[in-house]
């Protein structure tokens, strides 16, 4: 929220520098996002008195001798039509900075530095400026938008800095207001805090006004939906003369970014900024049946707002109606049909509290926003509703733009919005929360400055909470008021002085996940984190069939875009996208893993908490060297680290993995339970997305794996008797599977301790349709040293069984 220093000063004597005030505000909870001097970009501009002014023949230019007081006298060429000898104008000295304008002399195009120049052979040492060139407009300074020089008052001291004379020495505070302090969404609200922080009295704006003794016969105000409008006040003003507002009001509105329209509209805007109360003015002529009804809109009722937009409404929207039709969208914008016009003479002012949630919802639903709706969305208190109306009527009176009648209306749930609330809290409880002792004197000083009328009786701190402080309810609230004003620098850090000693750290599961990550990193993989949501298109990328369970994704009701609209049911699409991104950026090789949740529910908008399963996704890529077994090696390292045995099987239905190479993919199992898959990316997908590369993907269900991740170490003694090795080479059919051969060998001989495939050959030297597999076999016995004879028998038995089961022959 923008607050000009000059406006604040109307309510508080500020005797600190603008920067000191910024610190004070910061310390008590109001962060000043930016503090800027209004004329920050203007420098070196002084009051210049044109002593002589001679036209340069055949040009529109004049050559002027300008007295700039202490800065000297300069010859300045000037093209403005209103320059004359004896006039005082802003003179930008050589080296000054002013705004540069486009050819239209109105549009600002950045700033410029004034240099010595020559025009038509005449030297020019500076520039006489227009209002626009020094950052003014008509509202900030009357006459500023004249297309020529800005005429300064005759009493402006020659050579003086221009800024204080035209009000450019003002400071603008852009203050962020926390959600609990809607009462500070106004200049007066901030002034209250400044007064409290500086310990100065607050000068309340005048709210008195004279009435003309007349009343409006038969006018009625009814609130039908008080749940959405707990207070509705209105007042009738007659003999209105629509005119321009006085310069001081236009200037203030301009400072906070509001363009002046007319006195009546300006008053409503002024009260919004000053008191924080949005107001509205209706042209009485347009209110049919002399009444105002506040009610929910009827289904499909329509309204055209001031900005000529038409809206179709429903009962979620609150409207202000006359006897027949809606005339305003409550809290958001008035209707075009009851707008103040130049010939308006009778006005009904509205000051109301509309519930913030309803204003926000309507505003969002209709896409219609205004200063008023933004203010209501933060929450308006009824104290401001009442004060705002009084202030508006005072301004009518002060500006003389109408005559205030005795016809005031107040429809309200609460009786007295100005009533304070009594609150008593324990000082001991406050100090116990803060951990320090705030002296009683300080407590009284701070709460008095905040207008809480405090008193202390022993441990009891009693006060009257001002009506606008709806956020204050209990002792911690008071503790916060005290410490923010007393200063957080009084907090003395202690290290859990009174707390019990507790046993901290990760639990077993959390430790195993960390170990899992470190194991994967040790395999050369980098940990990735991807968004938990993606697009149905990402499942399309993997050609996941429409009826596959992975398509049963939870859908976000209000996604940022379709790209981030469904919750992940599998991680592989994100992983493939990461690989594609890397390849497209020219990263030739790499390995990635991600551990994240997947979300599963039968309903795309579940009402019961869905199942969240943790998954591990792996992606390896490089310019063609990566193969299936590189990925399998990673899984095997993981198995080793956790003392597990994974088994790999070609999927029974490779169509379940349409994104994988049908001949290079496997289902991974543990203890007979399927826990995931691994495979090479299908050729056509590779060619389409990452040509010239090879990608290995894997995904494991960590939730299923978790119970196995905390297997304790089981130490095994080294063998007592020597281990003997024999190698065999087998000729078997191409479709015979290594794991089946190994299993058969192990079944055949109890003393076979380990089998390891060490060579595979397919080719000319053996018959077509066959492959040669060479294995090393290690035998050992726990109770004796094996003899050659025994070993020969073992190998023979193994070969015999292999022959029987697989038609394997020794090569």
């Amino acid at each position, binding site marked *: 929220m923008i607050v000009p220093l000059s406006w604040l000063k109307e309510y508080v004597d500020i005797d600190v520098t603008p920067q000191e005030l910024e610190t004070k505000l910061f310390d008590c909870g109001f962060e000043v996002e930016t503090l800027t001097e209004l004329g920050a970009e203007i420098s070196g501009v002084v009051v210049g008195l044109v002593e002589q002014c001679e036209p340069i023949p055949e040009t529109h230019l004049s050559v002027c001798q300008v007295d700039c007081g202490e800065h000297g006298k300069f010859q300045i060429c000037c093209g403005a039509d209103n320059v004359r000898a004896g006039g005082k104008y802003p003179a930008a000295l050589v080296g000054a900075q002013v705004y540069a304008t486009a050819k239209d002399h109105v549009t600002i195009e950045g700033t410029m530095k004034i240099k010595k120049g020559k025009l038509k052979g005449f030297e020019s040492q500076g520039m006489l400026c227009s209002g626009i060139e020094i950052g003014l407009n008509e509202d900030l300074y009357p006459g500023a938008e004249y297309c020529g020089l800005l005429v300064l008052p005759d009493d402006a001291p020659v050579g003086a800095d221009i800024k204080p004379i035209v009000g450019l020495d003002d400071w603008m505070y852009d203050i962020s207001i926390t959600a609990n302090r809607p009462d500070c969404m106004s200049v007066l609200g901030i002034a209250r805090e400044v007064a409290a922080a500086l310990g100065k009295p607050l000068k309340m704006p005048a709210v008195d006004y004279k009435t003309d003794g007349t009343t409006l016969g038969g006018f009625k105000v009814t609130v039908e939906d008080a749940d959405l409008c707990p207070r509705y006040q209105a007042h009738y003003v007659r003999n209105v003369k629509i005119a321009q507002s006085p310069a001081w009001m236009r200037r203030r509105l301009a400072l906070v970014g509001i363009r002046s329209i007319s006195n009546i509209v300006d008053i409503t805007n002024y009260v919004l900024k000053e008191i924080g109360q949005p107001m509205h003015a209706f042209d009485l002529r347009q209110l049919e049946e002399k009444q105002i009804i506040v009610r929910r809109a009827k289904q499909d009722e329509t309204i055209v707002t001031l900005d000529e937009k038409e809206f179709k409404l429903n009962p979620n929207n609150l409207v202000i109606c006359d006897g027949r039709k809606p005339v305003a969208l409550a809290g958001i914008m008035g209707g075009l049909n009851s707008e103040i016009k130049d010939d308006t003479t009778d006005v009904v002012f509205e000051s109301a509290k509309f519930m913030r949630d309803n204003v926000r919802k309507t505003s969002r639903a209709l896409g219609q926003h205004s200063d008023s709706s933004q203010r209501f969305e933060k929450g308006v208190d009824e104290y401001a509703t009442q004060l705002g109306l009084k202030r508006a009527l005072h301004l009518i009176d002060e500006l003389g733009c109408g005559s205030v009648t005795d016809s005031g209306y107040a429809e309200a749930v609460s009786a007295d919005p100005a009533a304070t609330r009594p609150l008593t809290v324990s000082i001991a409880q406050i100090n116990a929360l803060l951990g320090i002792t705030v002296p009683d004197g300080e407590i009284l000083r701070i709460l008095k400055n905040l207008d809480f009328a405090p008193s202390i009786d022993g441990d009891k701190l009693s006060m009257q909470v001002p009506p606008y402080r709806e956020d204050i309810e209990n002792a911690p609230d008071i503790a916060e008021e005290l410490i923010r004003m007393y200063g957080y620098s009084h907090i*003395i850090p202690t290290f859990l002085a009174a707390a019990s000693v507790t046993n*901290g*750290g990760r639990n077993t599961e959390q430790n195993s996940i960390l170990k899992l990550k470190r194991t994967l990193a040790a395999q050369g993989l980098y940990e990735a984190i991807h968004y938990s*949501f993606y697009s149905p298109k990402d499942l399309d990328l993997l050609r996941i069939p429409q009826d596959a369970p992975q398509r049963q994704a939870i859908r976000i*009701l209000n996604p940022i875009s379709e790209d981030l609209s469904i919750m992940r049911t599998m991680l592989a699409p994100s992983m493939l996208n990461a690989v594609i991104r890397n390849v497209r950026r020219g990263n030739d090789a790499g*390995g990635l893993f991600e551990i994240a949740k997947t979300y599963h529910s039968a309903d795309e908008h579940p009402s019961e908490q869905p199942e969240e399963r943790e998954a591990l996704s792996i992606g390896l890529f490089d310019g063609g060297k990566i193969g299936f077994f590189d990925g399998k090696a990673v899984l095997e390292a993981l198995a080793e680290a956790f003392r597990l045995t994974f088994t790999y099987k070609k999927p029974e239905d490779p169509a379940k993995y349409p994104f994988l190479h049908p001949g290079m993919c496997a289902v991974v199992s543990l203890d007979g339970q399927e826990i995931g898959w691994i495979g090479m990316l299908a050729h056509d997908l590779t060619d389409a997305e990452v040509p010239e590369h090879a990608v290995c993907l894997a995904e494991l269900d960590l939730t299923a794996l978790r119970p196995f991740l905390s297997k304790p170490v089981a130490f095994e003694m080294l063998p007592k008797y020597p281990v003997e090795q024999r190698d065999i080479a087998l000729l078997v059919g191409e479709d015979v599977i290594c794991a089946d051969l190994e299993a058969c060998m192990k079944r055949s001989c109890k003393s076979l301790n380990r089998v390891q495939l060490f060579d595979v050959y397919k080719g000319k030297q053996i018959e077509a349709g066959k492959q040669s597999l060479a294995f090393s076999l290690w035998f050992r016995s726990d109770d004796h040293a094996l003899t050659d004879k025994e070993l020969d028998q073992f190998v023979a038995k193994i070969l015999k069984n292999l022959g029987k089961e697989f038609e394997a022959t020794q090569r």
Partner: protein
Amino acid sequence: MEKQIKAMREKIEAAAAAITDSKEMYQLRKQYLDNKAGQISALMKNMRDLAPEERPAFGKIVNELKTWALDFFTAQDARLKAAELAKKNAAEQIDVTMPAPANRCGALHPNTLIANELIDIFAGMGFTIFEGPEIENDYYNFTALNTPKDHPARDMQDTFYVSPELLLRTQTSAGQIRVMENAKPPIKILSPGKVFRSDDDATHSPMFSQMEGLVVDKGITLCDLQGMLDVFAQNVFGKDVRTRLRPSYFPFTEPSVEVDVSCFECGGKGCRLCKDTGWIEVLGAGMVNRKVLENCGIDPDVYTGFAFGMGIERIAMLKYGIPNIKMLFESDVRVLSQFHE
């Protein structure tokens, strides 16, 4: 005889001089010194043909020859082997500046590194780790955290909903309630995890990570909060870092504070990192709101507590100097390979 011996010596020397290979030299040695077939051994055998009185003198000179030959061949062998070794070494010389075969050392994500660092710090203070669900219900994410029904934070603009009842949690604070409902004080938990908000620009990501801390016990004060945050800040950002509390607002804490750390880049003098303020905002915190304790069945007149929450990406970006939050979610290996533990 002596002449014969001398001739043999010269013959050996001449033959040896022509040899450059230690194996050939060994053959030559065998030719003379082999126990059975060696020429010197053969000389010894000749002794039988001599008169007994000539034998000692003969034996002496043959033995002298043998001793000389042994030393000679040993020296020759050493010389040749040294030369051969030098040649072999020279032939095997490598350019040590050539690259080694890539044996990649992977790395954890910066978020994980920061989370681990924080967990280790707080674990040492007695915090356990709690990870709640990411799809939360409205009660745990908002209502129980004293976020009134019409609070702007609940609006569709900020929160992702998956159904009228369920949402993607916007804060790990949701975990606070789940813990407090089930555990009695003393409670010290740390709740790391992903959170989701409908924000997407250079500094905001619709998904990011938070680390939430909660302490509830008898006699917990605002002074304890700052003391603990000092320890945190000094561990994460450096020994000389100080913290500063300033008033703020969160529905679930009262009083609420923003916590700044003195700029670890410039030491508080003012620089680009701290935008010339000397301070960097790192987290939000406060004393647990009485209503939150009450909602969880904890008597706020007996127990007090504090909570704090920080964005893990923010800490990572500050600590490692990462300019854009998006880089953390793009998985560019050139980025990820920089974060070895």
